[in-house]
């Protein structure tokens, strides 16, 4: 009976994103949690899914070099029309 209420492995994988973003309806959320309690595979899967996102954030999130902002301002300063009483874009 508990197994029936807890939903399936496929449902866990299908609704993973909704679960993490708290967009599952209450009953589905409850079924999801029950399934995770009973299934070490799905529980490990969820943990890896979370870790993957966090790892990607840590290792892919490079801020661009600040000098690129200055280059963009210089680019615009050369192309925007001059304005009366208004300075052209400068870095």
């Amino acid at each position, binding site marked *: 009976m508990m197994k029936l209420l807890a939903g399936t492995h496929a449902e866990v994988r299908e609704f993973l994103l909704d679960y993490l973003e708290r967009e599952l309806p209450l009953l589905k959320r409850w079924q999801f949690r029950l399934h995770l309690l009973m299934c070490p595979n799905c529980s490990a899967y969820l943990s890896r*899914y979370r870790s993957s996102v966090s790892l990607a954030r840590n*290792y*892919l999130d490079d801020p661009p070099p600040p000098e690129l902002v200055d280059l963009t301002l210089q680019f*615009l300063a050369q192309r925007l029309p001059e304005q009366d009483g208004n300075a052209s874009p400068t870095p």
Partner: protein
Amino acid sequence: MSSQLPDDWIERLRAREHEAFNELVRLHHGAVYRLALRMLRHRDDAQEVAQESFLAAYEGIGGFAGRASLKTWLLSIAYRKTVDRLKRRGDEGAIISGVLDDSELWRIAQSVQNLTDWGVNPEQHYSRTQLSEHLGTSLGRLPADSRAVFELRDLQGLTSQEAADILGISEGAVRVRLHRVRQYLMRELQSLFGGPGVHR
């Protein structure tokens, strides 16, 4: 961030005041450049797209209706410019190498529970540079549109609705793509850190 700007900022942009545009560049260059770089994977091209996007924003500010945020509007210009550039290059992104099917996902699920979680201390196994390179290369195998979804949602922290507005697709499509990219990265990390159940 934009909440710290003066109330009349948008009006000053509409009046095409240069200093207001300077501020727009300082605030949003990073987001624009990163989206272009994630899709183009070429620094000079990404910087050129960023510059062209700000110029287009200056020319098109009269069409900014204010329904979306200024950042979303600007990123949608950058996205279109980036797609144009990809088309000119004849490169709209490589296709994902082998879409994950349900049986493969299940194999991963079965295999991970006995392994150390790679999220706990990944630099015990690989250097920061190695991890960045591996993840960057893996992401580079995905289509540019999928990389854009991942950049906007997971790296820049926009909502699915904002990403959908920028990319011109439905919110549901954003969520499906994001989920697939995350699953793909999970497989790539599984492959890097070892463990059964990963075959390509």
